[in-house]
């Protein structure tokens, strides 16, 4: 053992390990890169053989994503005044005219409303419950915590049968409110378990000092504990948001129009003769990028989030 720590890998080992990991990373990211680049391909380039790596970028996918178009005859086309905007020009080049906006914008907005609504509610309720579980002697505490977790083990389709009937009866089918409540219920288990972990880590002494200073329990909670737990609350919120954002099973079964979110909608984007891949890829890109950004922001708490707080680092 001459001069180096035995637990520190040799530089050759590091080099080999680094190369292998980078090769894996490149392979694993290829599908994602392909989604993003396909969004900027023309329909012809998207289905070219061999697959095109170098191509002339086009915004046709994005134009198709946000519009509906109709094909018109050559004479009618020539009779029209020249296109006023760049996107009209792209559509005209395909012998078509814009008939109106597509539903993508609405669906994306639904995802935002339902995602943020349910995140706010589940983090709000989850923080209260987590604080109580962390600080007070709640009767049957362990049973309640296990019950909260076990709700997550049910297959969504199994829960969807009675929820479908219940929503039909209450008039909540295909409404924002219904989906927000449903996603809140699903997310609460995650929120409680994660936040309990974060609040457990805040020393009780802070609150005790505040209580001695004449604060009530309630004031101690929101003036002392909440600011301390801010990072934990923020990362929990992002995890809840990502879940609601990505959820598909409930969305596809319980929504069809007004409250439909983007995941069930994106696969239904079709063009002439099957899926319009550049438009699908464009829709997917816009939908996936926020989650990629959040993942990078969250990287320190990622492990905690995905294991319900079971593994902390």
């Amino acid at each position, binding site marked *: 053992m001459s001069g180096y720590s035995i637990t520190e890998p040799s530089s050759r080992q590091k080099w080999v390990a680094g190369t292998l990991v980078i090769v894996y990373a490149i392979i694993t990211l290829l599908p994602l890169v392909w989604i993003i680049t396909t969004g900027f391909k023309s329909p012809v380039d998207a289905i070219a053989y061999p697959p095109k790596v170098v191509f002339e970028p086009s915004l046709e996918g994005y134009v198709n994503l946000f519009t509906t178009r109709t094909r018109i005859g050559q004479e009618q086309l020539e009779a029209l005044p020249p296109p006023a905007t760049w996107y009209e020009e792209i559509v005209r080049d395909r012998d078509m005219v814009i008939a109106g906006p597509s539903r993508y914008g609405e669906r994306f907005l639904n995802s935002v409303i339902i995602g943020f609504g349910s995140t706010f509610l589940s983090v709000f309720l989850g923080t209260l419950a987590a604080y109580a579980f962390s600080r007070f002697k709640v009767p049957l505490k362990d049973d309640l915590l296990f019950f909260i977790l076990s709700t997550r083990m049910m297959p969504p389709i199994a829960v969807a049968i009675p929820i479908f009937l219940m929503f039909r009866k209450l008039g909540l089918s295909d409404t924002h409110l219904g989906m927000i409540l449903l996603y809140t219920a699903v997310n609460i288990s995650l929120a409680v378990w994660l936040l309990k972990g974060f609040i457990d880590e805040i020393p009780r002494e802070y609150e005790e000092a505040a209580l001695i200073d004449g604060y009530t329990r309630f004031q101690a909670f*929101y003036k002392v504990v909440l600011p301390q737990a801010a990072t934990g609350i923020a990362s929990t919120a992002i995890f809840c948001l990502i879940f609601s954002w990505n959820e598909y099973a409930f969305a596809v079964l319980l929504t069809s129009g007004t409250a439909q979110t983007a995941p069930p909608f994106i696969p239904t984007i079709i063009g002439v003769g099957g899926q319009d891949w550049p438009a699908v890829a464009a829709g997917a890109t816009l939908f996936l990028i926020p989650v990629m950004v959040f993942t990078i922001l969250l990287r320190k708490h990622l492990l905690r989030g995905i294991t319900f707080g079971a593994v902390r680092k």
Partner: protein
Amino acid sequence: MSDTPIDRVAKATPPSVASKIRGLSDRTIAWLFVAPSIFLLLAVNIFPLIWTINLSFTNYKANRPNREVDFIGLRNYERILTDSDIWLTMQATAHFLFWTIFLQVLIGFALAWLINRKFKGNDLWTTLIVLPMMLSPAVVGNFWTFLYQPQIGLFNYAVSFLTGIDPSSFEMIGDVALAPWAIVIVDTWMWTPFVMLICLAGLRSIPDYIYEAAEIDRASKWRQFWTITVPMVLPFLMLAVLFRGIENFKMFDLVVQLTGGGPGSITELTSINLKREAFEKWRTGYASAYAIILFVTVFGLASIYVKALNKVKER
């Protein structure tokens, strides 16, 4: 600080109520804080579960709400457990579960071990590797059908590039022999980082002095790996398997978008099969019994597994 939601609630609360809250005991506050969550879970999870149990003893059909409903006892359960199609579904699920977990543990552990060699920039690459698992399985699964297209698909092209097989000679999702592997590949692509992250936490939890002591005892690297690394990471690995097991038993979105259960019903996992019974054939009573059986299975397997996990942790 004045922006926290609680503050806003506190400000909006009239003084009379606020002064009442001031006097509340910790016990009351505890219940006040826990009750809304529990209530919501009862309303959205437990009440529906009880309703499902109820429905499972009937021949109710949700698309004909006005038809007379008969109580038929355990007939639905009997039919499910003797139905050979359901056993085929279970086989497909078992194949999917076994191979995804096997591959994810193998690759995930290997990656974690490599990353733990602490090469320069390992944090950045770890974050990049993790990206696929955070994305919407339905949206990504749908795009994979494009990558799997014969001739034009990137996957087929890559395979032909590496092996020389004609890219239009095979169809990953249209072929009975290949489709079960098509879903295994995408799930492994998506979820290997999950196992990797947990293994990495396990590896990082092993203190250096254990290896130092082993080195002094002249234990070979190979022996150190099997007597220190593997047993110390095992509880973490089991936790990862538990999570993946439950998640993949529930698997719906990714596979529905990839193969829709096809070709035929070769990749029809239990959740997809259940969806067909409940929302396409509208056999609500039958599907409810099916749902209960699935739930009991997951719950039973998970609790056995958690017990085993705790035993490993105790060692």
